[in-house]
C-alpha cells in the first residue's frame, strides 16, 4: 500500500479509513434520525389529538414553494450521487461540477424557503398574538411547522458548509473526491437531509389537501 496524501492517523490503510469514515457517518445519521424522531413524535401526538385543526392549518401552507423545494432537493441528491459515481469512474472534473451543482441547488432551496417564510409571516402564520388561525390545534401545527423546517434548514446549511469545504479542498486536487472518504460522508449526510424533507413534505404540505 503506497502512502496517500489523504491518509490520516491512526490509519495505515486508505481503504480501512474510507470504511471507517463511512461507518461513522452511518452511525451519526441514525443519531440524526432520532433527533427528528422527537419532533415526529410530538407532531404525531398533536395531530392525533386535533386531526381537523391540523388539516385546516396544513392547507394554509404554500404548496407551490413546498413542491418546488422538494424537486430542488431531490435533484440535488441526484447531482451529489453523480459526483461520487463520476469520482470513482476517474472523471474528477465532471464530479467537481456535479458537486458545485449540489451546492447551488442547496442554496436555492434555502432562498425559496426564505421567500416562503416571508409570505408565512405576512399571512400571520407564526403562532403569537397576531396569529391568523383560531382554536388550539392550528397554533400547535404551526409551532411544529416552524421548528421542523427551521431545524431542517439548519441541517441544509450544515450540509452546504460540508460541500463547500469539499469543493475548496478538491479544486486543485481533484483526486480528493475519491480519496479518504470525505465525499462519501458528505453525500450520505446530504441524502439524509433530503430524506428528512421527503417525510416533512407530506406531513406539512399534503395533509388537509387530500379532499380538495
Amino acid at each position: 500500500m503506497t502512502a496517500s496524501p489523504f491518509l490520516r492517523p491512526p490509519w495505515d490503510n486508505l481503504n480501512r479509513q474510507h470504511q471507517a469514515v463511512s461507518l461513522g457517518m452511518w452511525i451519526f445519521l441514525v443519531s440524526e434520525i432520532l433527533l427528528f424522531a422527537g419532533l415526529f413524535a410530538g407532531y404525531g401526538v398533536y395531530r392525533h389529538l386535533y386531526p381537523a385543526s391540523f388539516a385546516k392549518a396544513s392547507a394554509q401552507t404554500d404548496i407551490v414553494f413546498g413542491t418546488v423545494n422538494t424537486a430542488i432537493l431531490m435533484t440535488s441528491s441526484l447531482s451529489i450521487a453523480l459526483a461520487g459515481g463520476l469520482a470513482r469512474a476517474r472523471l474528477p472534473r465532471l464530479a467537481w461540477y456535479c458537486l458545485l451543482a449540489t451546492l447551488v441547488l442547496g442554496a436555492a432551496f434555502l432562498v425559496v424557503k426564505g421567500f416562503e417564510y416571508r409570505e408565512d409571516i405576512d399571512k400571520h402564520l407564526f403562532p403569537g398574538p397576531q396569529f391568523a388561525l383560531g382554536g388550539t390545534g392550528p397554533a400547535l401545527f404551526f409551532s411544529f411547522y416552524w421548528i421542523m423546517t427551521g431545524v431542517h434548514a439548519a441541517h441544509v446549511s450544515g450540509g452546504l458548509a460540508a460541500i463547500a469545504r469539499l469543493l475548496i479542498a478538491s479544486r486543485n486536487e481533484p483526486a480528493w473526491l475519491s480519496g479518504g472518504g470525505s465525499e462519501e460522508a458528505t453525500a450520505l449526510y446530504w441524502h439524509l437531509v433530503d430524506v428528512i424533507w421527503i417525510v416533512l413534505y407530506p406531513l406539512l404540505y399534503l395533509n388537509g389537501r387530500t379532499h380538495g
Partner: protein
Amino acid sequence: MTDAALPARPVPDYLHHGHTIWSWLSTTDHKRIGILFAVSITLFFTIGAVAIAVVRLELLTPAGDLVSDDTYNKLFTLHGIVMVWFFLVPSIPVTFGNFLLPLMIGAKDLAFPRINLLSWYLYLGGAAFTVATIIAGGVDTGWTFYTPYSTMFSNGAVLTAVAGVIVVGFSSVMTGVNFIATTHMLRAPGMTWFRLPLFVWAMYATSLVMVLATPVLAMTLLLIMAERWFELPIFDPSRGGDPLLFQHLFWFYSHPAVYIMVLPAMGVASEIIACFARRRLFGYAFMVYALIGIAVIGFFVWGHHMFVSGQSPYANVVFSFLSFMVAVPSAIKVFNWTATLYRGSIVFTAPMLYAFSFLGLFTIGGLTGLFLATVPIDIHVTDTYFVVAHFHYIMVGASVSAFFGGLHFWWPKITGRLYPELWARFAAVLMFFGFNLTFFPQFVMGYLGMPRRYHVYPPEFQVYHVLSTGGAALLGGAYLMPLAYLVWSLFYGRRAGANPWEAQGLEWQAPSPPPHDNFLTPPRVGDPYDYHPPEGPAALMDDAA
C-alpha cells in the same frame, strides 16, 4: 530484533511527547484527551459537590435558616444538572474510555482523533456556559426541567442553561460514534469480538445508548427553548399543549442515561474483579449479552418515572413489567461477578475494595429499583427521599465507586507511578461507610414520607437528616483524600513498570505511561482473562505481604 538494534534514545511517553500548553490544547492523542477530560470533570464534580454541601448543611435543622427557599432550589438544581450531565454521563467513557479503548484493542488511537478533541471543546464550552448562567441567573426547576413550570413560570435562566446541555449532548454523540467506529474498525489482528475485554463491550453498549438517546434529549430541550423564547404553545396545557409529552420525551433519554452511567461502571468492575480474584471471568458470553440486553431494554422502561402522572394504567402495567425485565440481565451480572470470586485468590487491593463497594451498592440500588418499579409501592414513595436514595445508590454508589476503582487500577498505567496502597484502602473503606451513612437514612425517611426537594421539613425527620449530613462530611473527606495522595504519588510514588498487577489486558503490554503510538511492539492478543498460569498466583504487593 536484538538488544543491540534498539535505538539509543528511548521513545518518550505520551506525557513528554510535547511540553507546551498548546501541545495539550491541540492534541489528538486519545490519552491526552482523556487527561483533559479528567481534569475538566473533576472541576465540575467539585462545583456540584459544593452546591450539595450547602444543601446538606441547610438540612441539619428543620427550619430554613441558612439559605432562602429560592437559593435552596437553585442549589439542588445546580447540583443535579452538573452532576448528571457534566460529571456522571461523561465520567468513565471520556476518561478511561478515551485512554483505554484503543490500548485494549491494540490500536494507535481512536478512529477519529480530531473529532475526539472537538468533543472535549464542545463539552467544556457547553458545560462552562451552563454553569456560568446558572450561577449568574439561577435555575430553580430541578435538573428535570418539568413543564409547564420550566416553560411558563420559572424566572430563572432556563433558556441558556438548556442551551449548554444541548451542546454537551453533541459531545456525547461524537464520543459514541467514535467509540463504535473504533471498536469495529481498529481491533488488532486476532482481537475477535469475543476476545474483547468486558470494559470494551461496556463502552460499546454505552456508546449505542449515547448515540440513540442523546439526540432525543437535545430536541426536547430545543422545544423548551422554542416555547420560552417564542412563546409557542408546545407544552402549554391552556393552549392545547401537553406537559406529559415533555415527560415522555425527557425520560426517553433520561432513563437510558442511567445506563450510560452504570454500564461503564460494570465494565470497570469486571476488569478489576477478574484481575484481583486471579480468575477467568465467569460466564463471559453472558456478561456480553447482559450488557447489550440492559442497553436495549433500558430504552423501553421510561414510563416508570410517570406512574403518578396520570398516564394510562395499562401503560403503567407494561412499563412496570419491562422495568422488572431489566433486573434479569443485571442479576446475571451480579451473580457472575460473585461466581468469579468463588475459589479465587482474592487480593484486597484498593481497586478491589472499590469493586466490592460497587457490587454491594449496585445490588442495593438495583433491588430498591424493583420496589419503585412496583406501581403500588411507587405511588407511596414517589418524589420522596426513597427515590433520592435509590438513584444515588446506582449513580453514586455504583458508578462513582467504579470510577475510583478504575482510577486506582489504571493509575500506574496512566501516570507510570504507584499510589500509596494503605492510604488508598483507607479512602476506599471510608468512602463506603460515608456513602451508606449518607444515603441509607434517606431510604428510611423517604419511606416514612419525607418529600424530596423540600427546604423546610417536620422535626421528626431531623435525626435522619443529621445522620445523612454527617455521612456526607465523611464522603467529602473520602473524595478529597485521593486528590491529595494521588497528586503526591505523581512526584514521589514508586515507578510502576508496565504491568504492576500482572493483569492480562492488552493495555498492560504497553509501557507505563505508554508512548504516543501506544505500543513499542505489536501486542500479543490472547484471552483477556487468562488468570490461570501453571505456576500459581504471584505475590502481588510487597507492602501487603
